[in-house]
């Protein structure tokens, strides 16, 4: 996706989404698929109360996981990108670990760390970690040595290099990686929130509504979770557009 979205086209998309949803609800005629006419009012009624708390709990976990993953993966990626010798050594290991669906480690992490918020956040962070690590490494490796030398010749030490070269060089790629992996992160969040917690949209959707057949309420949870994904996606996208103007993208 390289174009920014106008408010008008966003509204049009939203309208199409609701029309299709309502149409599907009329066709299926089953309690498991209520239309937006039923769900949206429930959503707005529940959001200021219980649902809002579940939303915040989920958003908090994703944010913590993103922060943890970026804090660990970005510096490591920079080191690997600027030290080809170390990179050659660990590249095969990363290549093996990168495609493993990290969710399979859920039981391991639960047994080792207990079913806590920390273990949930850690599992999500693990997914994002590898995405960030790989893009930061590749961006840092792609910087011309001449660029680094000439900036060093202007007096830049390690701190100024980070501030004026490495940070702006890798930030757009970090945002892209986050935007692409946030969907998977929220999917894993959904799974982890189904066990031993009392707050979180996964818990709300599966335990508090689905299992007691409160379908319209369940959909308000689904809507909230979709909104969470959408919000992350577009906030990251906005930053990206802003930072990549030199590529002649979007708002030029």
């Amino acid at each position, binding site marked *: 996706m390289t174009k920014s979205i106008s408010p008008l086209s966003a509204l049009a998309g939203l309208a199409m989404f609701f029309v299709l949803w309502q149409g599907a609800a009329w066709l299926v005629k089953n309690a498991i698929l209520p239309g937006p006419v039923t769900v949206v009012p429930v959503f707005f009624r529940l959001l200021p109360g219980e649902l809002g708390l579940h939303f915040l709990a989920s958003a908090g976990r994703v944010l913590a996981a993103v922060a943890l993953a970026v804090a660990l993966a970005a510096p490591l990626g920079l080191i690997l990108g600027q030290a080809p010798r170390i990179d050659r050594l660990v590249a095969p290991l990363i290549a093996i670990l990168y495609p493993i669906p990290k969710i399979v480690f859920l039981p391991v992490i639960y047994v080792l760390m207990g079913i806590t918020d920390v273990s949930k956040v850690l599992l999500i962070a693990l997914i994002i970690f590898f995405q960030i690590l790989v893009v930061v490494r590749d961006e840092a490796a792609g910087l011309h040595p001449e660029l680094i030398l*000439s900036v*060093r010749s202007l*007096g830049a*030490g390690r701190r*100024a290099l980070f501030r*004026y070269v490495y940070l702006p060089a890798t930030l757009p790629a970090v945002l892209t990686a986050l935007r692409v992996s946030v969907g998977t992160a929220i999917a894993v969040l959904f799974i982890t929130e189904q066990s031993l917690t009392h707050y979180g949209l996964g818990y709300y959707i599966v335990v508090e509504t689905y299992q007691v057949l409160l379908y319209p309420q369940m959909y308000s949870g689904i809507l909230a979770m979709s909104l969470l994904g959408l919000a992350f996606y577009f906030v990251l996208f906005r930053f990206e557009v802003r930072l990549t103007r030199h590529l002649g993208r979007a708002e030029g």
Partner: protein
Amino acid sequence: MSGAAAMIRVDRLTFAYGGRVPVFEGFSLGVGRGEALAVIGPSGCGKSTLLYLLAGLRQPQSGEIRVLGQPLVRPRPRTGLILQDHGLLPWATLRDNARLGVRIRTFYGPDGRHAPREGAESRTEALARVDGWLERLGILEYADQYPSQLSRGQRQRAAIARTLALEPDLLLMDEPFSALDAPTRSDLLDIIGRAGPADGLTRILVTHDIDEAVLFGEEILVLTRGTNRETLVLEGQPGGDSDAEARSALRARLLGLLEKKP
């Protein structure tokens, strides 16, 4: 050398890239203040390496480099370096690129290590000087464009503005004109040439182009492939006052030296 005070003294320098044949072994060189030195040689002769050593970006295995009497252990704040290309940040506008040096100086403050301790000036003054250089080099109108939108010549002017705005006393250039067309090249060579004597700026130009070396260098250092031990310096014929005959003789002599196998 000559009568001028020493800007650079290289004393029995030895440098090799990790386990390979040394590029320099027991190599010595002197450059006087305000002098224009051209360094010429075939590719792989170590001319860029010499420049990086003089910039303090690489450290010799043995021997010593002194700049204005001080041993060189890290990049000096008052040494400017201009490379062939890739020196500009692709995500910053031309003006932001030209301001980078000033920004880095303000970032550290006048600590004597990353920025000169003496003559600290206000940020506004320094930034105004950057725009002044952009104007003198004829690229002020492109100040808000990104490097990818500009020609090589315009990018190289920006790199020159960025460096000269820091008011260096030593300017090191690594084939800065080799990717440029002839008119742009002679134009910039002229600007760098004029930036010299009045402000006492010492200039070292690395090139593989004999004409460039002859036109620029008051002295010409010839390097060879393999290990450089001897210092071979010829007197150059820069400026308009030297006669054509002396120039072509020098050209022929350089051509002979460069074609000779080490």
